[in-house]
Protein backbone atom coordinates (compact mmCIF):
# COMPACT_ATOMS: atom_id res chain seq x y z
CA UNK A 1 0.00 0.00 0.00
CA UNK A 2 1.67 3.21 -1.08
CA UNK A 3 -1.01 5.64 0.01
CA UNK A 4 0.48 8.49 2.02
CA UNK A 5 0.54 7.59 5.66
CA UNK A 6 -0.22 9.70 8.67
CA UNK A 7 2.01 8.36 11.41
CA UNK A 8 1.77 9.04 15.12
CA UNK A 9 4.51 8.02 17.49
CA UNK A 10 3.80 8.70 21.14
CA UNK A 11 4.28 7.35 24.67
CA UNK A 12 2.04 4.36 25.43
CA UNK A 13 0.22 6.18 28.22
CA UNK A 14 -3.46 6.58 29.03
CA UNK A 15 -3.56 10.22 27.89
CA UNK A 16 -2.19 9.18 24.48
CA UNK A 17 -5.29 7.22 23.52
CA UNK A 18 -7.31 10.43 23.15
CA UNK A 19 -4.54 11.98 21.05
CA UNK A 20 -4.78 9.10 18.57
CA UNK A 21 -8.57 9.27 18.56
CA UNK A 22 -8.51 13.01 17.91
CA UNK A 23 -6.00 12.60 15.08
CA UNK A 24 -8.28 9.95 13.60
CA UNK A 25 -11.15 12.44 13.65
CA UNK A 26 -8.91 14.84 11.75
CA UNK A 27 -8.06 12.19 9.15
CA UNK A 28 -11.73 11.22 8.81
CA UNK A 29 -12.61 14.85 8.31
CA UNK A 30 -10.37 14.97 5.24
CA UNK A 31 -12.09 11.84 3.91
CA UNK A 32 -15.65 12.97 4.67
CA UNK A 33 -16.08 9.60 6.40
CA UNK A 34 -19.61 8.46 7.21
CA UNK A 35 -20.66 9.00 10.83
CA UNK A 36 -21.18 5.35 11.78
CA UNK A 37 -17.94 4.25 10.16
CA UNK A 38 -16.08 7.01 12.00
CA UNK A 39 -17.66 6.15 15.30
CA UNK A 40 -16.81 2.46 14.84
CA UNK A 41 -13.25 3.36 13.87
CA UNK A 42 -12.87 5.59 16.94
CA UNK A 43 -13.96 2.75 19.18
CA UNK A 44 -11.86 0.01 17.56
CA UNK A 45 -8.74 2.19 17.42
CA UNK A 46 -9.26 3.24 21.04
CA UNK A 47 -9.40 -0.41 22.09
CA UNK A 48 -6.23 -1.29 20.18
CA UNK A 49 -4.35 1.68 21.69
CA UNK A 50 -5.66 0.89 25.15
CA UNK A 51 -4.26 -2.63 24.82
CA UNK A 52 -0.83 -1.21 23.99
CA UNK A 53 -1.07 1.10 27.01
CA UNK A 54 -2.32 -1.56 29.40
CA UNK A 55 -0.73 -4.82 28.29
CA UNK A 56 2.40 -4.18 26.21
CA UNK A 57 4.94 -2.80 28.68
CA UNK A 58 6.06 -3.51 32.23
CA UNK A 59 4.29 -1.15 34.62
CA UNK A 60 6.39 1.97 35.11
CA UNK A 61 8.30 1.38 31.88
CA UNK A 62 7.43 3.84 29.23
CA UNK A 63 7.15 2.22 25.84
CA UNK A 64 6.11 3.78 22.58
CA UNK A 65 2.87 3.48 20.69
CA UNK A 66 2.97 3.87 16.93
CA UNK A 67 -0.11 4.36 14.80
CA UNK A 68 -0.31 4.54 11.01
CA UNK A 69 -3.43 5.69 9.20
CA UNK A 70 -3.82 5.45 5.45
CA UNK A 71 -6.69 5.80 3.11
CA UNK A 72 -7.12 4.07 -0.23
CA UNK A 73 -10.12 4.14 -2.57
CA UNK A 74 -12.18 1.75 -0.50
CA UNK A 75 -11.14 1.93 3.12
CA UNK A 76 -9.31 3.70 5.88
CA UNK A 77 -6.73 1.39 7.42
CA UNK A 78 -5.31 1.97 10.88
CA UNK A 79 -2.34 0.01 12.22
CA UNK A 80 -1.59 0.18 15.94
CA UNK A 81 1.84 -1.08 16.92
CA UNK A 82 3.79 -1.47 20.13
CA UNK A 83 7.22 -2.92 20.91
CA UNK A 84 6.05 -4.64 24.06
CA UNK A 85 5.87 -8.17 25.42
CA UNK A 86 3.58 -9.38 22.66
CA UNK A 87 0.45 -11.45 23.02
CA UNK A 88 1.09 -14.08 25.68
CA UNK A 89 -0.65 -17.39 26.10
CA UNK A 90 -3.05 -16.81 29.01
CA UNK A 91 -2.37 -18.75 32.17
CA UNK A 92 -5.22 -19.41 34.58
CA UNK A 93 -7.10 -16.39 33.32
CA UNK A 94 -4.49 -14.01 34.70
CA UNK A 95 -2.81 -11.29 32.70
CA UNK A 96 0.77 -10.21 33.30
CA UNK A 97 0.23 -6.47 33.32
CA UNK A 98 -3.51 -6.17 33.45
CA UNK A 99 -4.81 -3.57 35.87
CA UNK A 100 -7.72 -4.29 38.11
CA UNK A 101 -10.51 -5.52 35.94
CA UNK A 102 -9.51 -5.49 32.30
CA UNK A 103 -12.87 -6.45 30.92
CA UNK A 104 -11.68 -8.56 28.00
CA UNK A 105 -13.85 -6.86 25.40
CA UNK A 106 -11.08 -5.13 23.44
CA UNK A 107 -10.39 -7.68 20.73
CA UNK A 108 -14.07 -8.68 20.41
CA UNK A 109 -14.95 -5.00 19.87
CA UNK A 110 -12.19 -4.61 17.29
CA UNK A 111 -13.57 -7.65 15.44
CA UNK A 112 -17.13 -6.37 15.62
CA UNK A 113 -16.43 -2.80 14.51
CA UNK A 114 -13.88 -3.21 11.73
CA UNK A 115 -14.53 -4.63 8.27
CA UNK A 116 -11.26 -6.51 8.37
CA UNK A 117 -8.64 -6.93 11.06
CA UNK A 118 -5.44 -8.77 11.78
CA UNK A 119 -3.31 -9.20 14.88
CA UNK A 120 0.38 -9.94 14.37
CA UNK A 121 3.27 -10.66 16.69
CA UNK A 122 4.05 -13.21 19.36
CA UNK A 123 5.79 -13.28 22.73
CA UNK A 124 8.66 -10.79 22.72
CA UNK A 125 7.85 -9.38 19.27
CA UNK A 126 5.53 -6.58 20.16
CA UNK A 127 2.01 -6.49 18.83
CA UNK A 128 0.54 -5.01 15.68
CA UNK A 129 -3.19 -4.70 15.15
CA UNK A 130 -4.33 -3.72 11.68
CA UNK A 131 -7.93 -2.65 11.12
CA UNK A 132 -9.71 -1.62 7.91
CA UNK A 133 -12.87 0.47 7.83
CA UNK A 134 -14.70 0.44 4.50
CA UNK A 135 -16.27 3.70 3.33
CA UNK A 136 -19.25 1.74 1.99
CA UNK A 137 -20.30 -1.30 3.94
CA UNK A 138 -22.10 -4.26 2.41
CA UNK A 139 -23.13 -5.40 5.90
CA UNK A 140 -22.76 -4.35 9.51
CA UNK A 141 -19.54 -5.99 10.75
CA UNK A 142 -21.08 -6.19 14.23
CA UNK A 143 -23.68 -8.56 12.78
CA UNK A 144 -20.99 -10.70 11.14
CA UNK A 145 -18.73 -10.84 14.20
CA UNK A 146 -21.22 -10.44 17.01
CA UNK A 147 -20.08 -10.10 20.59
CA UNK A 148 -21.41 -13.03 22.57
CA UNK A 149 -21.57 -13.79 26.26
CA UNK A 150 -21.65 -11.27 29.04
CA UNK A 151 -19.97 -10.08 32.20
CA UNK A 152 -18.73 -13.03 34.21
CA UNK A 153 -18.61 -13.29 37.98
CA UNK A 154 -14.86 -12.50 38.02
CA UNK A 155 -15.43 -9.12 36.38
CA UNK A 156 -14.02 -10.35 33.06
CA UNK A 157 -16.25 -10.84 30.05
CA UNK A 158 -17.19 -14.46 29.40
CA UNK A 159 -17.58 -15.20 25.71
CA UNK A 160 -20.01 -17.96 24.73
CA UNK A 161 -18.25 -21.16 23.79
CA UNK A 162 -18.36 -21.58 20.03
CA UNK A 163 -20.81 -24.33 19.16
CA UNK A 164 -18.63 -27.25 18.02
CA UNK A 165 -21.50 -28.55 15.88
CA UNK A 166 -22.01 -25.19 14.10
Amino acid sequence: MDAPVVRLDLPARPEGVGVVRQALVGVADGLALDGTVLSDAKMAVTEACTNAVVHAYEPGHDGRLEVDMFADDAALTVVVRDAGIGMQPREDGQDTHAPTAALGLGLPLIAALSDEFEVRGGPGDGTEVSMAFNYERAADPAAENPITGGPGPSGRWTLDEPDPAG
Partner: protein
Amino acid sequence: MDARTIALDARHGDVLLVVIRGEHDIYTAPKLRDQLDEALGQRPVGLVADLSGSTFLDSSILGALLEARRQALESGVNFVVNLGEEPEAGVQRILEITGLVPVFPVVRSAGEALESARAAPADA
Protein backbone atom coordinates in the same frame (compact mmCIF):
# COMPACT_ATOMS: atom_id res chain seq x y z
CA MET B 1 -12.79 17.44 22.31
CA ASP B 2 -15.83 18.04 24.47
CA ALA B 3 -15.05 18.75 28.09
CA ARG B 4 -14.58 15.46 29.92
CA THR B 5 -16.40 15.69 33.20
CA ILE B 6 -17.56 13.22 35.82
CA ALA B 7 -19.74 14.72 38.52
CA LEU B 8 -21.90 13.59 41.41
CA ASP B 9 -25.45 14.92 41.45
CA ALA B 10 -26.98 14.52 44.92
CA ARG B 11 -30.07 16.65 44.41
CA HIS B 12 -32.47 13.76 44.08
CA GLY B 13 -32.91 12.63 47.66
CA ASP B 14 -32.14 8.97 48.11
CA VAL B 15 -30.93 8.49 44.54
CA LEU B 16 -27.44 9.55 43.49
CA LEU B 17 -26.49 10.35 39.92
CA VAL B 18 -22.99 10.03 38.50
CA VAL B 19 -23.08 12.29 35.45
CA ILE B 20 -20.58 11.45 32.71
CA ARG B 21 -20.12 14.06 29.98
CA GLY B 22 -17.86 14.17 26.93
CA GLU B 23 -15.31 11.53 25.87
CA HIS B 24 -14.16 8.92 28.34
CA ASP B 25 -11.64 6.13 28.07
CA ILE B 26 -8.75 4.52 29.96
CA TYR B 27 -7.48 7.99 30.89
CA THR B 28 -10.55 8.96 32.89
CA ALA B 29 -11.73 5.46 33.88
CA PRO B 30 -9.91 5.64 37.28
CA LYS B 31 -11.73 8.87 38.09
CA LEU B 32 -15.04 7.26 37.17
CA ARG B 33 -14.28 4.24 39.36
CA ASP B 34 -13.52 6.54 42.28
CA GLN B 35 -16.68 8.56 41.76
CA LEU B 36 -18.84 5.43 41.53
CA ASP B 37 -17.18 3.97 44.65
CA GLU B 38 -17.78 7.18 46.54
CA ALA B 39 -21.43 7.24 45.50
CA LEU B 40 -21.95 3.61 46.53
CA GLY B 41 -20.21 4.32 49.83
CA GLN B 42 -23.02 6.74 50.66
CA ARG B 43 -25.48 3.81 50.60
CA PRO B 44 -28.14 5.42 48.43
CA VAL B 45 -31.39 3.64 47.57
CA GLY B 46 -30.43 3.91 43.92
CA LEU B 47 -27.49 4.90 41.74
CA VAL B 48 -27.91 6.26 38.21
CA ALA B 49 -25.01 6.41 35.76
CA ASP B 50 -26.11 9.25 33.51
CA LEU B 51 -24.60 8.87 30.02
CA SER B 52 -27.00 11.25 28.31
CA GLY B 53 -24.25 13.83 27.81
CA SER B 54 -21.43 11.47 26.97
CA THR B 55 -20.04 11.46 23.47
CA PHE B 56 -17.66 8.50 23.62
CA LEU B 57 -17.19 5.52 25.92
CA ASP B 58 -14.87 2.57 25.52
CA SER B 59 -14.64 -0.84 27.19
CA SER B 60 -12.67 0.61 30.15
CA ILE B 61 -15.73 2.67 30.99
CA LEU B 62 -18.07 -0.30 30.49
CA GLY B 63 -15.80 -2.21 32.87
CA ALA B 64 -16.11 0.52 35.50
CA LEU B 65 -19.89 0.60 35.12
CA LEU B 66 -20.19 -3.20 35.30
CA GLU B 67 -18.08 -3.24 38.45
CA ALA B 68 -20.32 -0.59 40.04
CA ARG B 69 -23.38 -2.60 39.03
CA ARG B 70 -21.89 -5.71 40.64
CA GLN B 71 -21.19 -3.86 43.89
CA ALA B 72 -24.63 -2.24 43.82
CA LEU B 73 -26.32 -5.63 43.46
CA GLU B 74 -24.25 -6.98 46.35
CA SER B 75 -25.18 -4.17 48.67
CA GLY B 76 -28.82 -3.90 47.64
CA VAL B 77 -28.51 -0.59 45.77
CA ASN B 78 -30.65 -0.18 42.65
CA PHE B 79 -28.40 0.48 39.67
CA VAL B 80 -29.50 1.88 36.34
CA VAL B 81 -27.87 3.53 33.32
CA ASN B 82 -29.60 6.50 31.69
CA LEU B 83 -28.76 6.87 28.01
CA GLY B 84 -31.07 9.85 27.49
CA GLU B 85 -33.52 10.46 24.71
CA GLU B 86 -30.95 11.50 22.11
CA PRO B 87 -27.87 9.44 22.87
CA GLU B 88 -24.69 9.80 20.85
CA ALA B 89 -24.77 7.08 18.18
CA GLY B 90 -21.45 5.54 19.25
CA VAL B 91 -22.47 5.33 22.90
CA GLN B 92 -25.72 3.63 22.00
CA ARG B 93 -23.92 1.25 19.64
CA ILE B 94 -21.40 -0.05 22.18
CA LEU B 95 -24.21 -0.76 24.65
CA GLU B 96 -26.27 -2.52 22.02
CA ILE B 97 -23.61 -4.70 20.38
CA THR B 98 -22.34 -5.87 23.75
CA GLY B 99 -25.88 -6.87 24.73
CA LEU B 100 -25.63 -4.75 27.87
CA VAL B 101 -28.90 -2.80 27.44
CA PRO B 102 -30.98 -5.32 29.42
CA VAL B 103 -28.06 -6.18 31.74
CA PHE B 104 -27.39 -2.80 33.34
CA PRO B 105 -30.39 -2.06 32.68
CA VAL B 106 -30.40 0.93 30.31
CA VAL B 107 -33.28 3.44 30.28
CA ARG B 108 -33.91 6.43 28.03
CA SER B 109 -34.80 9.36 30.23
CA ALA B 110 -33.88 11.00 33.52
CA GLY B 111 -37.43 10.48 34.81
CA GLU B 112 -37.41 6.80 34.02
CA ALA B 113 -33.97 6.46 35.57
CA LEU B 114 -35.01 8.05 38.85
CA GLU B 115 -38.17 5.99 38.93
CA SER B 116 -36.45 2.65 38.47
CA ALA B 117 -33.59 3.64 40.79
CA ARG B 118 -36.18 4.32 43.52
CA ALA B 119 -38.61 1.54 42.85
CA ALA B 120 -36.85 -1.43 41.38
CA PRO B 121 -36.13 -4.30 43.67
CA ALA B 122 -32.39 -4.91 43.58
CA ASP B 123 -32.58 -8.37 42.10
CA ALA B 124 -29.57 -10.40 41.13
